[in-house]
Every structure is written in C-alpha cells, then in structure tokens.
C-alpha cells in the first residue's frame, strides 16, 4: 500500500500553481485524490505534462482535466471497446498508453495536453485501494517529485479507524532538520491528521535557487488497536467488513522445506544473496520448528533425508551446509518440488512431525524449468496432485527471467503465495522480508461464518493461514439494508487447541464516532467490498478451475464497470481537447498485469545495463563471415 506522486512537470514557461495529494483512509480503505494546477505563461501554446505514480495494488477510479472552464472526464470502458479508440489514436501517431510500470511497487500515470498561451489546466486523478497489514502495520507512501518549485504544495492524510489508533508515524526521505517541524501530526483516539506543506521558500535548495528539495518518499505508517478475539466488524449502509487479527495468539510450529535453485543462472550475486538470506532465516527458526534443505539444479540433493528439529546443533550444521551451496547445472523444478512434497508426506506418515504444526515448502528459483519436466502446466498439475491440499507452497521468483505467473498460479493452487525478488543490492533483505511475513503462522484453516439469511454476497471467507502481523479481511453485502446486527463465528486450528469464537456484529454510528466530520466518504464499505471482490475474482480468473475462470472474468468485468475501477479488464478513456489541426485524441489508462510489469522491467534492465551491446529490441539471428 503505497502512494507515489509527481506534480505537473514544467518548463520555465510553466508555473506550477499547486500540487496537492489528499489521502483519506477510512477503515483501511484509502481514497487518494491528486490535484495539480499549472499555468502556461508562454506567449504560445505548449504541452503540459502530468506525471504521477500510484501503487500497483490501487485501482484508478477517476481522472479529469479542466482547461479554460471545460472539464474532460475519463470514462471506464471494457478493454476491448477502449482498444478500438486506442488503435485509432496510435494510427494517428499519438502515444495512447498512459500507465507504465515504475519500480517494484508503483505504476506511472502520465498525460500531456496542449495548453493555450496564458491558460490554466487542472489535472485530478483519483485512485482507491485496501491497505494491507504487513509486519504489524499499514503503510502509505507518497513519492513526490514536483520537478520545480510549487506555489502551493500540500500532502494531507486523514485516517479514520473506529478501532482506535495504536500508533501513527510520519517520515520522509527528504526531510532535513529544517523541514521536519513542517510535518504536522494530530492523533486522537480514532483519528489522525498528517499534513506537510512547505512554502515556496522552504522548498528551495538554497536561498534564491530554483531547485527544490522536495524529492523523495513520504511515509505514513500506522496500526490499530486490537481488543477481543472476534476482530472488528463494521456495518455501514448495507455492507459490512470484518477485520480479523486477534492479539496474543501463540504461534503454530511449522515444518518448512526450503527448496533452493542453485542452477548455473544463479551464478554470482544471486547465489551469494541466497546463501546470506538462508543463513539469516535459519537463525530465526524457532526451536519447535522442523526444517529441511533441498538444493537442486538438474539433479536434486537434500541436506538430510527427512525434516530436522531446529535445535542449536542442527541449525549450526545446516548453516555449514548452506555456506557450501554452489551454482551448477540446469533447472529441474518439478523433481525438486516433488522431492520436498514426498519428504513432508513421509515424515507426516511416520509421525515424525508435531501433530499441530503447519507444513510448508518455500521454493526459491530464478528461472524456467529446462531439465526434467519442462511443461509448466504439467508441473503445476504434478505438484497440486502431490500436495493434495495438505501443505502450503510459497514461491520466490528471483530476477527477471523467471516466469512469475507460473509460480504465482502454482502457489495459489497450493494454499500459498508467490513473491518476486528483484535483482538488487537488497535482494537478501527482500528474501528475509518475505520469509518473516510467512514465518509465524498463528492459525490455519480459518473459517469466518456469517448467517446465510443476513449476508448476500461475501468475499472469500476461508483462509489457509493467518500469519502474525497480517490481517484477514472479509466483506459482504447485507440482505436487508436496515439490518444493524448479526452473529459472527470464527473457527481455525491453533497451537494446542482449536480456535473458536462467536460474537455479535453491530452497526457503528459514524455520527457518534466522528461528530465533527460532516462527511468522510459514505460508500467506502461498499467500495471496499467491491475492490476486494474484484481482486479475488481476478485471482480466480487466473488460477481457478477451468470452469470457474470464465465466470470470474465476466463478473470482475461487470463489477469493474459498475464501480468505475480501472482493472486489468477495463481501460479509462480520456478524450483530450481538439488540437490545432482539429483532431481530438483519446488516451487510455490501463491496469498492468504482473507479466506486463515484468516485461517492461526486462526492457528497462536491458537499456540501463552498461554492458548492453544490443542495438535494438528485437532479437537478431544472423549468419555472416568472419
């Protein structure tokens, strides 16, 4: 959950009058409005650019441009329909795509418009997302790069959390001792207000200079209070949302098999970083945990033939083994995973593992299978059949050559999740960070029940695990708009005993909670429900059963259109004002898929590589003389 922003970009003849990032978070649902206003001071018309970055987990829900009193508003359309306009724009030489991948977590939205002399333009972009709790906190990141001094610059964040705020932190990478006092933070029990608004003089790199110091990341991090084991259920306007992350649950021991790709392509920094991360991860294992190490290239070898308790002596021995992992050979993912599954299954069968413990496989790989079974769909089928739904598979895809969607689908089919690890100096930390997120399971097989006669359309209410520091969120529509209470039951498997809790959900009176607020944003629970439902439908459309996929896609499209969300199935069409030659030019804002992001990074990587000798994008196959 991050935000990233740039204001309207400038030449000397453009005055950026204001840049405002206004984020309102209501019960983790963030609604951000970015506004930028610029004046063309030149004596002729010129192009003015608006570039902002938004989290890849967010959906754009609105975009508009106001030029000389005329407002041009974006319209969300089915992707195929929008594409026709896109093709028209491309054929007339326009750059029609507005959204590009940017870094690991962001997407860049950029648009330009031709503005008459002495005229103003106002851009407004709105997007929404559900903040995810990771390692015990929610995070809002605003990346600001206004590129020039701005008359009125403002970042404002308002947080409304009926559960009460446990802490709120605001920091920024560009904050000097001079700027630090400008961050205003007001936190009351259930509300926080953070603002940062430097004057034009305070933005200057030095007195009289035109450069700006405002260039970097602005973070707001917070968590909510957690009382009671049932979690927090909020009923608003005929919809409800249930946040479940009970405090003080003991962790469940885990049995983790680490499956490490050491094939030739892991050569160099990647294998070094893998060794470093594994050493740190082993140190963090709890003594109740069991673990195994399997390294593979085109051959598979295990440290030991069964899982081993994480005692000090065993960990020391394992660390020595890890220090000697060397890159070599090709990549046989299929055989490596099946070996891990068999090892866990055999140890379970022979009662070597604690009865109440969670079985997981953590695969780290950087490439496509090119030894043994090559067909990724058959590998998915083999692994799914082998695990039989009895263990979780977490996949770490290292670098840009990895087929991330293959790993993503395979993880989801096996009660796990996948994460991309970017090749960079911090890869070790990325690996450790992912491990920390999943290292401490608190509950497994969590079911959240709501009465059928009360709840109509529900998001996923079964979760394979609840991890320490995370949160389960379920939202639903109520059958009766006026219903203000119903029974809730949560069940799961915890350490030593089953977890079961029942309670009553009651509507909260927002007028009492926030008496001074006339309006927060009234339909947020409904939009949170829609956002969550669409995300889950998109997941099903990629990794579900074949018969589910088409239905899920159709339903996700219908809801994206209904709620005006730019998702991978829809596009936002913005028609720019007519140019001097009398043509108007539609622009399209899309939502990138992970594959598109990865592809763009591959290209970016190539162009940025100093050793790159490739003169063009297309591969060339040639034969010539010496």
């Amino acid at each position, binding site marked *: 959950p991050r935000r990233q922003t740039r204001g309207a970009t400038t030449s000397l003849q453009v005055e950026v009058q204001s840049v405002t990032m206004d984020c309102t978070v209501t019960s983790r649902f963030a609604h951000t409005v970015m506004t930028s206003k610029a004046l063309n001071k030149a004596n002729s018309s010129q192009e003015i650019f608006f570039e902002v970055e938004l989290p890849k987990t967010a959906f754009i829900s609105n975009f508009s441009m106001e030029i000389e009193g005329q407002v041009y508003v974006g319209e969300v359309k089915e992707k195929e329909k929008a594409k026709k306009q896109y093709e028209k724009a491309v054929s007339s030489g326009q750059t029609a795509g507005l959204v590009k991948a940017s870094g690991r977590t962001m997407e860049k939205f950029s648009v330009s418009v031709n503005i008459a002399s002495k005229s103003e333009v106002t851009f407004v972009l709105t997007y929404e997302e559900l903040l995810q709790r990771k390692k015990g906190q929610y995070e809002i990141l605003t990346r600001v790069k206004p590129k020039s001094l701005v008359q009125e610059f403002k970042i404002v964040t308002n947080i409304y959390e009926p559960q009460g705020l446990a802490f709120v932190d605001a920091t920024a990478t560009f904050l000097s001792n001079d700027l630090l006092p400008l961050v205003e933070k007001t936190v009351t029990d259930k509300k926080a207000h953070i603002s940062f608004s430097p004057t034009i003089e305070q933005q200057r790199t030095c007195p009289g200079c035109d450069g700006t110091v405002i260039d970097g990341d602005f973070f707001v991090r917070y968590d909510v209070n957690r009382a009671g084991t049932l979690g927090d259920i909020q009923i608003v306007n005929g919809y409800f949302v249930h946040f479940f992350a009970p405090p003080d649950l003991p962790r469940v021991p885990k049995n983790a098999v680490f499956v490490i790709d050491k094939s030739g392509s892991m050569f160099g920094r990647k294998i070094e970083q893998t060794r470093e991360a594994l050493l740190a991860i082993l140190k963090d294992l709890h003594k109740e945990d069991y673990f195994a190490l399997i390294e593979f290239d085109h051959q598979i070898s295990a440290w030991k033939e069964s899982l081993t308790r994480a005692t000090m002596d065993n960990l020391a021995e394992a660390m020595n083994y890890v220090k000697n992992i060397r890159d070599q050979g090709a990549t046989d993912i299929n055989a490596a995973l099946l070996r891990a599954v068999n090892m866990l299954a055999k140890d379970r069968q022979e009662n070597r593992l604690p009865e109440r413990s969670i079985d997981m496989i953590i695969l780290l790989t950087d490439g496509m299978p090119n030894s043994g079974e090559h067909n990724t769909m058959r590998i998915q089928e083999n692994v799914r059949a082998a695990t039989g739904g009895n263990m979780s598979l977490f996949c770490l895809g290292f670098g840009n050559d990895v087929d991330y969607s293959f790993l993503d689908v395979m993880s989801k089919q096996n009660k796990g999740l996948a994460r991309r690890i970017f090749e960079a100096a911090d890869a070790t930390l990325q690996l450790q960070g992912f491990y920390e997120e999943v290292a401490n399971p608190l509950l497994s097989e969590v079911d959240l029940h709501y009465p059928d006669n009360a709840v109509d359309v529900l998001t996923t209410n079964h979760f394979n695990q609840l991890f320490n520091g995370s949160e389960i969120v379920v939202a639903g529509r109520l059958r009766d708009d006026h219903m203000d209470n119903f029974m809730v039951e949560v069940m799961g498997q915890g350490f030593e005993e089953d977890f079961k809790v029942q309670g009553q959900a009651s509507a909260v009176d927002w007028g009492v909670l926030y008496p001074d607020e006339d309006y927060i944003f009234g339909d947020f629970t409904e939009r949170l429900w829609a956002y969550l439902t669409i995300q889950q439908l998109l997941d099903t459309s990629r990794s579900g059963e074949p018969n589910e996929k088409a239905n899920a896609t159709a339903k996700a499209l219908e809801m994206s259109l209904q709620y005006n969300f730019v998702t991978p199935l829809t596009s936002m069409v913005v028609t720019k004002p007519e140019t001097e030659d009398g043509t108007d030019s539609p622009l399209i804002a899309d939502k990138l898929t992970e594959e598109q992001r990865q592809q763009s990074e591959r290209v970016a990587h190539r162009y940025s590589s100093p050793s790159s000798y490739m003169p063009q994008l297309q591969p060339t196959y040639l*034969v010539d003389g010496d």
Partner: protein
Amino acid sequence: PHFIIELPDKNDALCFNINDRPGTIFNLVRDPESGISVNGQIIGDKKTPPNGKINTYFWRFGIVHQTLGVRLMVSTQDISVFQGGKRVKLLWSDTASLKRPNMDLLVQKDRSLTVTLKDSVKFVILLHKVWQKHPYHRDYLGFYTLDTHLFSSSVHGLLGQFYNGIEYEVTDLRPGATPEKPDATMYVRGHELNVTRGLQRDFRRDVKNGEDVPCWFIHSNGNGLIDGDATDYIVSGLF
C-alpha cells in the same frame, strides 16, 4: 560462416561456426506453415591461405515464400526476383527499390539488401566486398533476420530453430586457453557442453569492421546446441 543468436531477454548471445566443403547448401530457415524457406550455399577461399585453414562463406541465398509465390536468389553478383512467371534482376552496383503489394525490396549500393515480405518476415542481406585482387578471399554475404514474430512454432533450420527462443544455463566459469576467453559449462537441450566466452561481429552498422558481440561460443559446428548436427541441414538445391 559464423552464426550469432542474440537473446535480448537474457542480455546474452550464442554463437557457433558451421563449415563444410565449398559448394554445400545449408537450410537456414524452414517454416512449413508459412511456406518460407531460406537456403544458402557456401564458397571457399580462392586458394589455401598460409595458415592452411580454408574459410567458407555464404555466397548465394535462395529464399522462397510459397504463399506469396515469391522466389529470390541473392548472390554476390546480383539479385533476382521471381514472381508470377516474371524475373526482375537487380545489381549490387545500383541503389534500387522495388515495391510490390506483398513485398518491399531495398538495395543499398554495394552494401545491403533489405527484404520485407508482407505479414511474414523481414531480413537483411549484407554484401561484403573484398578487394578483387585479394590472393585468398572472395566477396561473400551475411544474412540477418530482423523480425521473426510471425513465424510459426514449427519453424526450423540452422537459424530458424532459435526463433522461438532457447533455454540454457551457463555455469562453472573457468580460465580458458587465452585469459580473455574463459571457458564454462553450458546446459542446453539436455547436453552438457564446454563453451568459450568470445566475440563475434555484427556487421549491420559497420559493414567493414563490424561491431563486437560478446557471446558464448559453441565448438564443433554448434554440436549440442543445434538440433541434430550440421549435416542434417544440408539440402540439394537453393530452392
């Protein structure tokens, strides 16, 4: 002749040489679905150079597009286009262009021929002119495929088999015969090969000197990297 397979996704390239007796014709590309084939004939030096090694080069290419009914024969002397029972002959000594509904040809005098066949392929043939009185070497040609995305998945041939990508891994980097050319082990198509890091030249931008392309060199006529061995690609005629 030397072959270079550029793999931008991997920021890497593979290369190998194929040599045989002068006069041998090799199939470079064959796509049964689109009906495209490219064959090339090699020629040797005028006589054995002092180092005793006879180099071979491509001097003639035969290109067929069955669906479009086009045949091209490109040699170091001239370029012939056969279509609809007619023949058009172009000379390397002229800059010329030929525009047809299904085909564009552009000859840059004494330098290159660019061919675009509609909805199928784009390639460049370079002419390497050698001093006519050179005691050993002759003129020769280079063949560069520029756009392969419209070929089918069944495309094959010495170049064509790589159009749909190739999976390989390189490991165990170690000192080679010369310090700047380390050896390594390559795992490809189920084989474990000894390969050498080296340079080959791409002459598109500088037809005289070429530009160095770092690549993994596969020894022994590309054995292990190519499907089968080089003799499997020998054909009896240019068309």
